[in-house]
């Protein structure tokens, strides 16, 4: 009788242990959930969708290799409609209902702004995607931003532009600056004003315009009337096209023009604007020049991206944001693997002190969560002929002028010489 009792007890213990280990097996196979809001509709969706596609490619690549910590990775995302007011609701749902383990921001400064205080309140690691100077005021130590703006993000967009201008002979003297009334252009203009002072240029025009302006010719005419040597423009895609077309119509031909024009690097805009881009000197983050194509992993990524982008009707070349979106996920994934867990503080500490190897090169973050060393490029559109997309796949059309270590060609100066 006693033996039978012991056998039953033993069976119960065995069952409990088995059930426990089964539970552990189930937990080990549970996916690691990464949550985000992304601009899939609205004004920034032209960048949001390619960014999301790059993240999905990373997820697929990681899962093919067995996932993170032996667990599959799952992306949970919602459309933030390019509307900052949707961000708190989306991330509350992601954290409290979907129970995501990690978060990243959606695309852009305006969408990161409402998320940063939430991440601070909950002490989360926050990977930021292309936000300009979001952490300047907060100095939140667990925020890491993948746009290679560097330690002084406000001047990062304009620094290459004004450094190049200052080196030209004869040296330009007067500057016109203009930008949209929105967060990114305003930050870029603040940086431009600082640099104008630093390099000793004289400002002859400094104005902003509402983002939904229809006709840019009066603005460009007013700029032309001040006869500036260089024109720095901080604009979003529709205004970039509007300003450039108006400049051609009004025959505005300063010695250098461009600077902070978002959108010129988008495939549809490059192919539609064609030769009208020639001569423009503009910021960028990536170009299919030999200096970038040599980085391991980038060719494979672009090959996969371009096939999937065609099907999903998003930016077909993917040279602007997608490599950085993928790299951001590489940083997060490598940090999870290195810390062997999902502890937010340990992951943040690891990201802060480590140099990561990614498809955009080595990434090391500085004290404000921006890249320790900035790498915003200045490129010049050169020798573009017609609207064929193939010409943009190779080098020579978007020549890197700045910084020196990524330089792939020389500035054609003045603008009129490159324009024709």
């Amino acid at each position, binding site marked *: 009788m006693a033996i039978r009792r012991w056998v039953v007890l033993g069976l119960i213990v065995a069952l409990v242990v088995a059930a426990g280990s089964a539970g552990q097996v189930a937990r080990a196979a549970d996916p690691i959930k990464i949550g985000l809001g992304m601009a899939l509709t609205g004004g920034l969706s032209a960048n949001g969708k390619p960014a999301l596609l790059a993240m999905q490619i990373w997820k697929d690549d990681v899962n093919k290799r067995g996932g993170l910590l032996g667990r599959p990775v799952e992306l949970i995302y919602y459309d933030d409609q390019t509307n900052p007011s949707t961000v708190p609701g989306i991330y509350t749902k992601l954290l409290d209902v979907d129970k995501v383990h990690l978060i990243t921001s959606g695309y852009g400064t305006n969408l990161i702004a409402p998320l940063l205080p939430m991440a601070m309140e909950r002490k989360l690691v926050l990977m930021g995607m292309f936000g300009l100077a979001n952490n300047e005021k907060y100095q939140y130590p667990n925020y890491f931003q993948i746009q290679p703006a560097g330690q002084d993000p406000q001047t990062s967009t304009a620094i290459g532009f004004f450094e190049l201008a200052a080196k030209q002979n004869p040296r330009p003297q007067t500057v016109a600056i203009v930008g949209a009334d929105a967060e990114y252009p305003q930050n870029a203009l603040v940086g431009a004003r600082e640099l104008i002072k630093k390099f000793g240029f004289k400002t002859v025009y400094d104005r902003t*315009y509402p983002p939904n*302006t229809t006709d840019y010719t009066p603005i460009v005419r007013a700029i032309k009337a001040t006869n500036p040597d260089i024109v720095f423009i901080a604009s979003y895609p529709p205004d970039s096209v509007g300003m450039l*077309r108006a400049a*051609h119509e*009004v025959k505005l031909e300063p010695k250098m023009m461009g600077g902070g024009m978002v959108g010129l690097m*988008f495939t549809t805009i490059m192919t539609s604007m064609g030769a009208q881009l020639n001569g423009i000197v503009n910021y960028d983050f990536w170009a299919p020049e030999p200096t970038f194509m040599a980085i391991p992993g980038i060719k494979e990524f672009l090959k996969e991206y371009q096939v999937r982008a065609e099907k999903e*009707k998003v930016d077909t070349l993917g040279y602007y944001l997608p490599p950085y979106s993928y790299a951001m996920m590489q940083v997060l994934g490598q940090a999870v693997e290195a810390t062997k867990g999902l502890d937010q503080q340990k992951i943040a500490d690891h990201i802060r002190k480590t140099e990561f190897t990614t498809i955009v090169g080595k990434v090391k973050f500085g004290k404000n969560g921006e890249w320790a060393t900035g790498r915003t490029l200045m490129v010049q559109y050169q020798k573009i002929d017609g609207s064929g997309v193939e010409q943009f796949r190779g080098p020579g059309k978007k020549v890197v002028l700045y910084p020196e270590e990524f330089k792939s060609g020389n500035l054609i100066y003045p603008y009129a010489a490159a324009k024709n």
Partner: protein
Amino acid sequence: MVSGLLLGGFYAAVSLGVSLIFGLLDIANIAQPAFLVLGAYAAYVMNNALGWDPIVSGLLFTPVFFLLGALVYRVYYASFERRGDEALRGLVFFFGLLFIMEVSLSLTFGVDYRLVQTAYTSKSYEIAGVGVALRYLVPCVVGLLMTLALYLFLGRTFYGRAIMAVSQDQGALRLMGANPVHIKTIAFGVGIAAAALAGALLISIAPVIPSADRDYIGRMFAITVLGGMGSIGGMLVAAIILGVAESLMSTFFGPSWSLAVSFGLLLLALAVRPQGLFGR
């Protein structure tokens, strides 16, 4: 000043449909800007596939848009107007339609900016010492012709007069043996057909994305209200006032103030004349 006049002509083309549907028929079709963007995409597709000029495409698409508009009105009538639910539920219907069209365009074309190059893009001429950009001159001329055509249609044709009558007294029109629903179907169709051509003008001026409708919704209704509900001539004057105000502010006082001053003018005009400049 010249830039403002050209912009005003374009604004007139964009606001024509609202002036007809909202101003005359008193139907708050807030989906009108989505039809405008649909017209822009139709022109983009034809330009991209066959190299057609957007204005030619816009003209060819007007019958299709007319039928689409007639269909939308019939659904609206059967679901809301006939039951007397048009005030709030009708507004929700058009709001929903706007979002459905926006999302459908996103799914079909993606969310990239789409633009076209025409023979007149980036060309300008000096006329009496004033630089005139063809990119704005052509849409302005087309906009003025559209306004003139609608003005003549409303004043000189049987259906036009019937539309004017339906806006004033549906009961009286019924007594004359005409069917107000039939007349309103035609008027709604004409308003949506105007969006096909206006959309073609839009894409020849600026890049378009599916959500571009949001940039125009305010201007369209402001121009219609400022001109006076139902007054096509008033709409044209209001469009030119807004265009000139935006342009002059951009040139002389800084572009930041342009929209604020334009809409300030609207408020001021409405404070003095609540029925609009040419409203009765």
